[in-house]
């Protein structure tokens, strides 16, 4: 009789039994330790990738740190990264994939405002909490997107900080606005002009420049001819900003340039013809990555720098606030899950709405049922452009 049971058949029966055993055990195990899945829509290639790559470092470090300490409420954290390459169609596809196929519990991003405009509705429809890290105003809305929360500054806060500095501190009145031809650039230039006019100042000239234009002499001649006494660029393109600084220096026109944070970003430095061309330039920045009068950074910033430096190769050669932001996004999720006791979206929404003064590395976060933008105005400061050191900057003089 046993001759009938061939090795093959015996093996099949044995493996079937083993499989059944493992799967039931597996199911029991899985239910106890179902990982918390975080979807991360990042534009690792394509436009704004330097911001995304730095944010990615922060996100990954936070996830690793949490998992080393036993996860959140005992559950491991699983990070699913998708490279959207700056394309809204890809962002929508991957958002759908993460939401429905991978069934994530949270979504961070996308990084570009253009992509976020397309995905925030999709994520809201699925009812999954979304951490918004794009700056355009319309990305958060308590009624349309009840589970979208923004930890980052808004475009308006950047522009207001810069406008206030140019008008109140530098005492300038004749503003030249510069935007690039991208969606963000044209929208921001328009917004900047509107906010200036609310303060009673009409810009003397407003220019839109292609970020790849290699020569800006004519644009600067036009601005000089219009009598501009301050230039305010709203573009994230480091090549355009570097060329602006170069043209200003080459024509030896000592007009202050005040604007977008990218003005002080490290990739600008090697593109400058002379290092002193970076003088007399001020960029919108953050209190937590600014050296105070004693040359010290806030303690939470230093804490994160010490922790993360080894995994970054021992030095920090990119703007650190991106890393802080990425790290904080994951920590915010951790806080929400602990407070809610689960990953149930409705509970998360309630927990987030009740979050007040959550101290992060980047800033202190407070949300409510009617307010989805957490960044406090007071934490938006102006930095001196050429003062990059270990990812942070010096405070611009207030007199």
């Amino acid at each position, binding site marked *: 009789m046993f001759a009938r049971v061939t090795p093959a058949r015996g093996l099949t029966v044995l493996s079937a039994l083993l499989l059944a055993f493992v799967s039931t055990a597996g199911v029991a195990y899985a239910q106890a330790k179902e990982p918390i899945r975080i979807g991360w829509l990042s534009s690792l290639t394509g436009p704004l990738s330097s911001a995304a790559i730095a944010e990615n470092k922060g996100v990954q470090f936070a996830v690793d740190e949490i998992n080393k300490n036993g996860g959140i409420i005992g559950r491991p954290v699983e990070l699913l990264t*998708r490279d959207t390459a700056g*394309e*809204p*169609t890809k962002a929508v596809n991957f958002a759908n994939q993460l939401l*429905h196929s991978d069934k994530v519990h949270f979504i961070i991003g996308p990084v570009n405002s253009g*992509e976020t405009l*397309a995905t925030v*509705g999709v994520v809201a429809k*699925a009812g999954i909490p979304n951490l918004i890290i794009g700056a355009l105003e319309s990305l958060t809305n308590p009624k349309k997107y009840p589970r979208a929360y923004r930890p980052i500054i808004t475009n308006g806060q950047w522009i207001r900080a810069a406008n206030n500095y140019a008008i109140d501190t530098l005492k300038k009145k004749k503003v030249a606005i510069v935007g690039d031809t991208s969606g963000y650039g044209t929208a921001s230039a328009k917004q900047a002009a509107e906010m200036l006019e609310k303060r009673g100042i009409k810009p003397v000239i407003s220019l839109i420049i292609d970020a790849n234009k290699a020569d800006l002499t004519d644009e600067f001649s036009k601005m000089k001819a219009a009598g501009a006494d301050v230039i305010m660029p709203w573009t994230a393109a480091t090549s355009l900003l570097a060329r602006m600084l170069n043209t200003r220096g080459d024509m030896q026109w000592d007009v202050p340039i005040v604007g977008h944070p990218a003005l002080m970003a490290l990739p600008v430095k090697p593109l400058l013809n002379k290092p002193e061309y970076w003088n007399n330039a001020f960029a919108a920045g953050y209190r937590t990555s600014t050296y105070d009068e004693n040359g010290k950074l806030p303690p939470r910033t230093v804490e994160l720098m010490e922790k993360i430096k080894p995994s970054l190769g021992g030095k920090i050669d990119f703007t650190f606030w991106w890393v802080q932001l990425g790290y904080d996004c994951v920590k915010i999720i951790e806080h929400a899950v602990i407070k809610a006791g689960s990953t149930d979206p409705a509970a998360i929404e309630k927990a987030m709405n009740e979050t007040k003064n959550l101290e992060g590395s980047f800033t202190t976060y407070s949300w409510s049922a009617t307010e989805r933008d957490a960044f406090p105005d007071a934490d938006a400061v102006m930095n001196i452009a050429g003062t990059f050191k270990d990812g942070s900057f010096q405070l611009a003089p207030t007199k």
Partner: protein
Amino acid sequence: MTEHSRGARIATLVMGAVFLVALPFIVRDQYQLHLAQLIGVYWILIAGLNLVIGYSGQLSVGHVGLLAVGAYGFAIIAGKYDFPPLLALIACGALGGLCGFLLGLPSLRLPGFYFAMVTLAFAVIVTEQSVAQTDLTGGGVGLPVPGFAAPFDSPEGFYWLILAVAAAITWLTWNIARLMWGRALIGVRDSEVAARSVGISVYRVKLIVFVFSGVTAGIAGGLFASLQSYITPDTFIFELGLFFFTCIIIGGRGSIFGPFVGTVILTAIPEVVAPLAKLGNFFYGFLLLVVVLLTPEGFGRLFQQALARFNPKVAESTVVAPDPALLRKALQRAED
């Protein structure tokens, strides 16, 4: 065509139709349904474009511009001005056709490569203007797009709407290709001089086909906009125009099924390589190269070859032999 193979063809078509209609219940989740909707929308444009590139041989790389026209048209007509979505969709088709007419009128007279350049220029100009004309298109910030009314407001309902439109357009193109028009088109593609000599008005044929492709692009644009629920100029980049072109060539010219398979595969590849994150785009290029090198004739031909293996055409031999009686008569007449 034998009864056997005709029956087999109808059976396959019916099975395919049943599969497509039942798709929302077969797919695992909303994401795969979204992909199916996207493929459907792309196919509506590509089916029309197929007639232009695959059948009449005109290299249009700028159809993304017509897609943008349809998309923004829908967003403005149905969104800003609150027209009923179905009516807006028809308006978008008409708008696309009009743009196709205006674009094709001067440019179809140009030899192939220069025509491609004009369509390319059209796409670039449309993209730039969608950023510049802030009052109309929302500029860089873009426009939100409304969905359709019931019963098309659920994902399944919207899928069936796309399926219905796609099926109608596919049926139209299949008929055009199959009947006299299709032969005229292929004639124009392969040898314009010969086509002209047989009395085909080459320019008129090219223009009508191009306008038709404009209509399908406009309709596809409207559905695309509604699918994405928000459109920005970043969506309509030139690479998308190249993508449509690629789907058709990879599918094989002169076939309808081939480009459809091409669309499905090319839409699916980026999703499959998605977990590779940073390396994903590189692998997309790599896979594209591999596919092109392996199937230079396109999938359509591969499919036909596979079919031929299952349905070998038995060669009927016709004997060519003289008819002696007739020959004798003709010779006798010649002698007289």
